[in-house]
């Protein structure tokens, strides 16, 4: 029974969503505390939020910052990672630095960066960029390192320049691994986005979420949590589809969805 259901893609997650909502509703009714409104009350706020122009603008602001941060990270991190993978010298140059900044909570840099760049878009985009870059560099590095040497030799023998080899062989060959990095990066981008907006409350979803918490609008708090959750799930799903199209030739890489900040 369960396996026939699982054959329909999208159905099991949908059932899981409904089950989670049911659990929430039941818990709210059983415990009956102020801080946990029943699911249906929070969900009733959804159309109100999504219909509100200002709230939509906030959400768009967040998504825009995230997109810019991710795009910048892609542009910088992938070349660096690929070079690290192909050159021992570059790898030796960057590795200790990356290992040192790896455990720094990027969103916690926000108060300091705010001092320099203000509370506007620049500092938030920078924090997102930093958060996304590290896993991207790491995975591009791993991908480029695993490229079959013989292919590079053949390409060199055919007269390809080093740059051509990097773009035409190393990049496509590392693509599956890079996608693992992008997926991790997306999760991180979302976390960093919410946290940075929470610290510098000026606009965005994190701003609505924590302001409504401070104003004790609990229905809105939970509705925003649902919206951010949906945003995360949809991004992940869309990304999986894209990955499946672009690197259909590669075996699905087993990966651990990481959520570092």
């Amino acid at each position, binding site marked *: 029974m369960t396996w026939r259901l699982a054959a329909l893609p999208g159905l099991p997650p949908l059932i899981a969503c409904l089950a989670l909502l049911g659990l929430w509703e039941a818990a709210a009714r059983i415990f009956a505390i102020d801080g946990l409104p029943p699911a249906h009350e929070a969900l009733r706020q959804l159309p109100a939020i999504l219909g509100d122009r200002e709230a939509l603008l906030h959400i768009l602001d967040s998504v825009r910052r995230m997109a810019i941060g991710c795009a910048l990270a892609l542009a910088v991190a992938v070349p660096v990672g690929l070079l690290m993978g192909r050159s021992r010298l570059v790898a030796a140059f960057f590795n*200790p630095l990356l290992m040192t900044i790896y455990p720094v909570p990027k969103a916690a840099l926000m108060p300091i960066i705010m001092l320099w760049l203000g509370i506007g878009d620049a500092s938030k985009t920078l924090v997102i960029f930093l958060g996304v870059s590290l896993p991207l560099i790491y995975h591009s590095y791993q991908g480029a390192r695993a490229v079959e040497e013989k292919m590079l030799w053949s390409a060199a023998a055919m007269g390809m320049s080093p740059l051509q080899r990097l773009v035409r062989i190393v990049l496509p060959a590392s693509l599956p691994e890079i996608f693992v990095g992008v997926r991790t990066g997306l999760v991180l981008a979302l976390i960093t986005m919410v946290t940075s907006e929470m610290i510098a409350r000026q606009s965005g979803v994190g701003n609505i979420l924590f302001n409504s918490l401070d104003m004790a609008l609990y229905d809105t708090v939970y509705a925003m949590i649902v919206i951010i959750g949906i945003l995360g799930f949809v991004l992940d799903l869309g990304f999986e589809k894209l990955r499946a199209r672009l690197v259909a030739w590669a075996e699905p890489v087993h990966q651990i969805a990481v959520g570092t900040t």
Partner: protein
Amino acid sequence: MTGRRTSELLVGALPIALLLALWHGIAASGMAPPSLLPAPLAVFSRLVEQLCNPVFLEHAAITLLRLFAGFAIAVVIGVVVGVAATGNRMVEALVKPVVRVLAPVPKIALYPAFILILGFEHASKIALVAADAVFPILLATYQGTSAVEPKLVWSARAAGTPARKVLFTIVLPAALPSVLTGCRIGLVISCIVVFLAEMISSTNGLGHLLVYAARSFHTVDMFVPLIAISLLGLLLNASFNALRARLLVGFPEEW
């Protein structure tokens, strides 16, 4: 070989030294006032001073308590559910879609809910740490245990080993590398998340110290907790790798 290693180490120290020099240069040239960018020496001497300060250490201890409590909960839930999902098709059918939905959700967004339900004290922060760390551990355990060679299990079963003993003597040891990788990722995540949670709402802990310093514009004191938590992350990561090397003699190292 050793010559090559030392030269590689030197090359690696270069960017870090350059960054520190740049930092020192900017601070010393007076381009940035100390209230915006304190000199690196001032920051590090303050860090050393704070590390001998019992009040600071108390904050750090509170952070550590929350970190380890949340991480321990995540390890227990992650490993148990991961093993159960491999061993039982019903559990797998139940767990997989729920994980598929919950794993990509940014857990920090759940923090307001945890505050409202569990209060402003330890419990809400521990819950957030556990929620963030559990998924990498669960996924790694699941991948590790489902990759165990079935023939090993069959042979053991054919030789008359009871199912529980197979779990502890074959499945878990074979999955250990993967489980430990998940735990290491979970540990670094815990370190970061506990700090963020303390920044958002807390009256103690290292994250609170940063926010407190930011409110009173003590820039030097903003850097100190940040460096402290990063050092803590590096330290935990390194000790975990040492533990891993002891437990898994012969397995390749990881970053």
